[in-house]
């Protein structure tokens, strides 16, 4: 057997409370496109950051063409021949392409020379790009080309790509794939991270699958079905808990044909979303982050406005209403980002209680704030949801993630919503707190509220939800009842293996 390009042996990296990578071993051969598969939080990012010298492992080692390889900084990794294209671009809008490329280089040549080389590389690899254009005018796909060309100018042996297609149009994906195949033909290797199973089957010849920080399987994805890959990714050991079907009540939240353009270049457009949630029902919406979760929550919360009749709460159209009018009508939301979105980091818990509770909890008289009532409201959230903090005067940023999450979810639940929408309710929360939050959500539904839980945690969704749909590239699949739903079906719905198969199973 020939010497592999990069061999990884027993890498372990632990953070307080979580093991990001545990005894990870695999090899990347010369001239192969190697897929790294796994759910969010499976440890993919930690692993590639280790390879790129951004993170130092606790134990384990790496070998580059049989020589020890332990980069302590990205420039060492680049000097060895590793280049990385990040999921989020680090480009300056106000500068042109060549200037941006020069900024990312350790030793940039004169700009005129560099522009010529950019032109050369861009024609060689079929990545059309004018070095003189301002980055601010480029599309997401073109921006990615800037990053890729920046990497290619270093003549790398191993190119790491983190979720490269998440911001691309299908046409741009085709161009990218042609480039990657050309790079492989030149003998370069690519480590390709994605959730998109179809892409991986089309592009990669080897796949390493991570689950909860461990390598659980290696395979040739071309020989597997999307269904089998999804199974390996989520693990078949998970079984849906038995649920007693509740009597469906009246429809409390109805969304019909909600389409919204992405508010920003990196956002996802919502496409014709339809959902119905009844009193007492919990609808689980699964999907990999960046498929429109934030946008869906913003549209339901009223941060993004929609045509008036598209969103209805108890048959009352609310699409054009702002967040506070929707709150008054009983539609409450808890966004994913705790610090900065659901809560203001430097404000006290009392002030943060006021943030959404002002009108419903009558913390405001006319227009004047009743600080005493606000403090009492904060204290009651702290007491009922076991928020560990010295008191309501503490700034939100001083709380641990789990405690703040309990506060944020508790703040909405305490306002007795008719409809509650939560995004990632237990993200980064310890097991006990997560269980408490899930229980509170189920109790809320039991009490007659309609609850929508958006989450990437499939276990969580299967545990709490009555019905399940998947959000994929801004589209929401048809809902399926959770009882009887298998992990394979869930995986297929999520992996975007095509709605056809799901529809086929449904009939």
């Amino acid at each position, binding site marked *: 057997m020939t010497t592999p390009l990069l061999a990884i042996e027993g890498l372990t990296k632990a953070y307080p409370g979580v093991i990001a990578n545990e005894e990870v071993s695999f090899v990347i051969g010369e001239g192969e496109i190697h897929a790294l598969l796994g759910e969010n939080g499976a440890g993919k990012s930690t692993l590639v950051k280790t390879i790129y010298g951004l993170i130092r492992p606790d134990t384990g080692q790496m070998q580059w063409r049989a020589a020890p390889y332990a980069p302590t900084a990205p420039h060492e990794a680049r000097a060895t021949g590793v280049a990385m294209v990040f999921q989020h671009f680090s480009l300056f809008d106000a500068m042109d392409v060549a200037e941006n490329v020069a900024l990312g280089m350790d030793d940039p040549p004169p700009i005129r020379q560099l522009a010529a080389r950019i032109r050369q590389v861009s024609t060689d690899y079929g990545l059309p790009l004018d070095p003189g254009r301002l980055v601010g005018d480029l599309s997401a796909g073109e921006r990615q080309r800037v990053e890729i060309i920046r990497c290619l100018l270093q003549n790398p042996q191993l190119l790491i790509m983190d979720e490269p297609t998440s911001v691309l149009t299908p046409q741009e994906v085709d161009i990218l794939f042609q480039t990657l195949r050309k790079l492989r033909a030149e003998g370069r290797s690519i480590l390709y991270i994605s959730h998109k199973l179809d892409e991986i089957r089309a592009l990669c010849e080897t796949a390493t699958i991570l689950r909860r920080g461990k390598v659980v399987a290696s395979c040739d994805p071309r020989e597997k079905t999307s269904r089998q890959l999804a199974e390996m990714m989520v693990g078949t050991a998970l079984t849906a808990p038995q649920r007693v079907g509740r009597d469906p009540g009246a429809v409390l939240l109805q969304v019909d044909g909600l389409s919204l353009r992405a508010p920003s270049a990196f956002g996802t457009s919502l496409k014709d979303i339809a959902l119905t949630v009844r009193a007492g029902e919990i609808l689980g919406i699964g999907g990999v982050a960046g498929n429109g979760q934030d946008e869906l929550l913003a549209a339901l919360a009223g941060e993004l406005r929609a045509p008036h009749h598209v969103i209805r709460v108890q048959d009352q159209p609310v699409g054009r209403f702002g*967040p506070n009018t929707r709150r008054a009508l009983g539609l409450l*939301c808890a*966004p994913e980002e705790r610090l900065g979105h659901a809560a203001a980091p430097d404000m006290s818990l009392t002030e943060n209680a006021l943030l959404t509770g002002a009108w419903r909890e009558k913390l405001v008289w006319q*227009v*004047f704030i009743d600080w005493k009532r606000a403090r009492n409201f904060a204290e009651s959230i702290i007491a009922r949801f076991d928020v560990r903090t010295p008191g309501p005067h503490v700034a939100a940023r001083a709380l641990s993630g789990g405690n703040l999450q309990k506060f944020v979810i508790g703040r909405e639940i305490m306002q007795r919503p008719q409809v509650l929408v939560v995004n990632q309710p237990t993200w980064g929360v310890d097991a006990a707190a997560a269980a408490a939050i899930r229980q509170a959500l189920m109790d809320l539904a039991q009490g007659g509220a309609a609850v929508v839980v958006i989450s990437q945690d499939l276990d969580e969704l299967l545990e709490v939800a009555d019905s399940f749909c998947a959000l994929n590239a801004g589209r929401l699949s048809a809902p399926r009842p959770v009882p009887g739903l298998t992990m394979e079906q869930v995986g297929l719905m999520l992996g975007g293996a095509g709605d056809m198969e799901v529809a086929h199973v449904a009939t």
Partner: protein
Amino acid sequence: MLRLERRPQPSRVWVWATPVLAVCLTMIAGGILFAILGKDPVAAIRMIFWDPLFSQQFAAFSRPQLLVKAGPLILIAVGLAIGFRAGIWNIGAEGQYIIGALCAAAVALAFFPSGPADVRLFGTVLFSFDAAPSRWWLFPLTIVAGAAGGFLWAMIPAILKTRFNTNEILVSLLLVYVAEKLLAAASVGWLRNPQGAGFPGSRNLSQFPAVANPEILPGTGMHWGVAIAFVAVIFGYVLLHRHMLGFHVQLAGQAPRAARFAGVAPARLVVFCLGISGLLAGLAGMFEVTGPARMITIDFNVGYGFTAIIVAFLGRLHPVGIVLAGLLMALTYIGGELAQFMLGLPSAAIQVFQGMLLFFLLALDMLSNYRIRLAYREAA
């Protein structure tokens, strides 16, 4: 070596200790500056901070000046602080102050008892009035004109920002220079005193009792503008600490996304914050032109609008702090003039001195969010 460590939450002690420390450091650095200029640093610092209040020679004249100077500073700074808390940076209060004064003066002069009661623009009569010098509503009308002038001048950056997403810092700042040109044009043109022998400058409004803004209590420097400044302080305090709008202002400044989640409409907030600060700056200009300044002149503005930025930050964007900071900055104005006069310090040295105060304050503000630890360099 020194290491910065982020505090879990901002230190309340340092939030109020940094202004005091900044004043001390400014005195030291300013003293060094004065020494380099060949002046006795102790005497200069004493001249700026002590003599205006306590020297027998100067106090009788300069003590009332304290309120005269502090009034507009406080009035403008309260408005600015509201915007700054929301992260909306009105740097052009100086321009709004000028336009407020111009509008107020235009209205007042239109009713001036003697001479023609025409208001002219480029030589053409815009409108004419029957002079009615003793109507009770003249002074309130002048106030409204001043407030409206400042408000509308601030609406230019507000509308450009909400409509076209321009930068309000640049637009409001550049409009100061436009306002200065308008001021110059008014003092040599359409507001010029027809009996002024061709000298630039308007009629003396203190000779027109119906619109004059004299000292309320003789010998204190207290005029209506100072009274309104204190009303504004109370208004600002209630708004920022008791009113839902004030909560939204602070939320928008600290966490814009959380503000949208709380239902704050960013565009409306921009209009409100720029509007209120422009309005108060316009009021300050109105009370100045009808009071201490007495008339429109080419050099009517003395930088209150810019100094008020320092006052707002020195006062921690808190209305009560702004009162203290306004008095302190007024002192540096008076003391600075005194030092210019007595010690021959260049006027630029005093401006540098005021600028240093803001510099030290902003630099030291780090201490409220970070603590400094002595630590050996950790092995990377």
